[in-house]
């Protein structure tokens, strides 16, 4: 059974899908410098313009529903990927009241965002995946597998994370938070930008005139170290290889890798090595996190949407900010490349050696 990506929409620091793609091709980072989270220390963060994350979820979901061939979501499974769920609102209440007494239990736990969407849209069923930065990529993996076994015909995959102190301070404590817009794959990179986004995709077992195909998925867990990837890049290679095999494609069929590319020293070194070992110099690679920042649990879905747009536009995104490429054995374009794009690998990697890759392709 094939899985088709039939509708999607995003809200992130660079705006909606259209605004995001314009920023990517114009090499205009949407990351801003913030001094509110960490005293006396600027941080590069990707902030959306919005009132609260719940309204964004409702608005973006409504847009996807309106553009779809569905009247409602009564026969649709919701799979939401998020790293910290409702933490943003939880922090706000705690901050103002200094205790948990008045926390709304429906907006508390990791699956809070799922519960909210279920109440608003009456989904048939729901679940949340929380594997940190691979959360919504793993939601896509699960969506494909559930369509494979004909468990559901319509699956709404949501990637969502709102900016909050826990993640900003947490990545700062890890020593990987950049004080400027991040520089993926550059020798001078000094870390990542925590960011927020809501990215939503409708995956169905039926093809429409605008369909893209979720051709393959691969997931591995190298369990090498809690926060660092396997230095030999075994886990990253394995997830990419599995996704390409699952898509029944060969390495030569892949035109572009939308890299995880967080701009942390460890991730980019290992991911570049994995791409070098697997593809040599034969595939274009770039990281769009230079534009969006790292949207954590939303990253897999937002980058899958970017991959769909790259295929539709037939333009490979350039690497924003790149001056001195660290690993020169991979092919990172500094300017946009106009070409026919048929298949893309999109990578998402997370703590604990949790590696996920998906293959998005044009329908044949």
């Amino acid at each position, binding site marked *: 059974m094939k899985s088709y990506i039939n509708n999607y929409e995003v809200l992130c620091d660079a705006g909606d899908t259209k605004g995001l793609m314009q920023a990517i091709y114009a090499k205009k980072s949407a990351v801003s410098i913030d001094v509110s989270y960490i005293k006396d220390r600027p941080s590069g963060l990707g902030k959306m313009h919005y009132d609260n994350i719940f309204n964004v979820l409702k608005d973006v979901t409504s847009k996807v529903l309106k553009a779809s061939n569905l009247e409602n979501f009564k026969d649709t499974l919701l799979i939401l990927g998020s790293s910290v769920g409702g933490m943003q609102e939880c922090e706000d209440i705690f901050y103002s009241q200094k205790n*948990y007494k008045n926390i709304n239990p429906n907006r508390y736990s990791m699956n809070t965002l799922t*519960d909210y969407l279920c109440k608003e849209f009456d989904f048939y069923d729901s679940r*949340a995946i929380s594997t940190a930065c691979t959360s919504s990529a793993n939601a896509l993996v699960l969506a494909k*597998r559930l369509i494979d076994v004909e468990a559901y015909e319509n699956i709404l995959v949501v990637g969502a994370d709102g900016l909050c102190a826990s993640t900003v301070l947490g990545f700062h*404590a890890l020593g990987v938070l950049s004080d400027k817009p991040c520089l993926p794959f550059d020798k001078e990179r000094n870390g990542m930008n925590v960011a927020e986004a809501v990215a939503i995709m409708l995956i169905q077992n039926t093809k429409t005139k605008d369909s893209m195909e979720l051709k393959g998925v691969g997931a*591995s867990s190298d369990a090498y170290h809690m926060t660092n990837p396997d230095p030999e890049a075994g886990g990253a290679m394995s997830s990419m290889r599995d996704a390409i095999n699952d898509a029944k494609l060969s390495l030569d069929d892949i035109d572009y890798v939308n890299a995880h590319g967080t701009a942390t020293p460890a991730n980019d070194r290992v991911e570049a090595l994995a791409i070098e070992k697997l593809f040599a110099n034969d595939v274009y690679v770039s990281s769009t996190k230079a534009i969006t920042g790292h949207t954590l649990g939303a990253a897999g879905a937002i980058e899958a949407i970017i991959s769909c747009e790259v295929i539709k536009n037939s333009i490979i995104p350039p690497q924003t900010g790149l001056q001195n490429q660290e690993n020169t054995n991979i092919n990172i374009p500094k300017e946009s490349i106009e070409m026919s794009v048929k298949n893309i690998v999109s990578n998402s990697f997370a*703590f604990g050696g949790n590696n996920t890759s998906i293959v998005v392709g044009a329908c044949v």
Partner: protein
Amino acid sequence: MKLYIKDYSTYKSDEEDIDIKKTLKQKYKLDTRRQDAFIHLGLYGAMLLKEKTVIDKDDELYVTSGIGNVDVVQKTNTRVYEQNQPLKLFDFINLLGNTTSYYIASALGISGKNIFQISDNFTFINTLISLYASINHSQKNAILCSIDLASTPNEVIKRVLGVDEDCSVVSGVNYQKFSLTKDDAIAEIEFDTLSYSFDEINNILKDNNTKVIFSKRCDNFFETYPSYIINDAIKNDEDIIFVDSFEDRYKILKLKSLK
């Protein structure tokens, strides 16, 4: 959808009150530093399973919970907002669902696919469906860890679960090793994606002769309770139909003992 259970492990805090961290350190020689009670509970169940069965490094791992790690959320927020202290690195790391999965995978020696799935409705059955869909493709075995920690603040956990104030909540960790093949299986479990109304459930069960157990949301409750019920039935060599409920919908699990 049908799966075979090769082995299981069970721990429920109201049945056996032990110092889990001490047991992990002394009996199993595990390094428990930088971890919290939620992770320790998951690891304890993993070690009980490892004592009984062979774990393959390619086995897939699914960890599921009804409410997740509430303690660590309280701890980080108290530290940052009440005590005005910087967030501790390992409290941040322990906030993330796949941290628990990582420690369990490491303890079991698993390097296969590793997923942390959470939902406060049909938690166990929904994860079982995810697991089935995955191994139906990979043809591998899968370990499912169902974990819920009841610790302070209990009042918050009850509100998250939507249970009455006088309902006692307990901690539980229950594992099963699932396979697509019947060889050496101790039980067979059937389930599907459908949910039913109360009338439909009554209709389905009206001519049934198998023991039926309904989900309870009171007395020694935890959200992944169905996983405990399954293990208890296997232990007692029973065939059961388990009916899980959420609001006004019901889902069914059918367990057949093969011992």
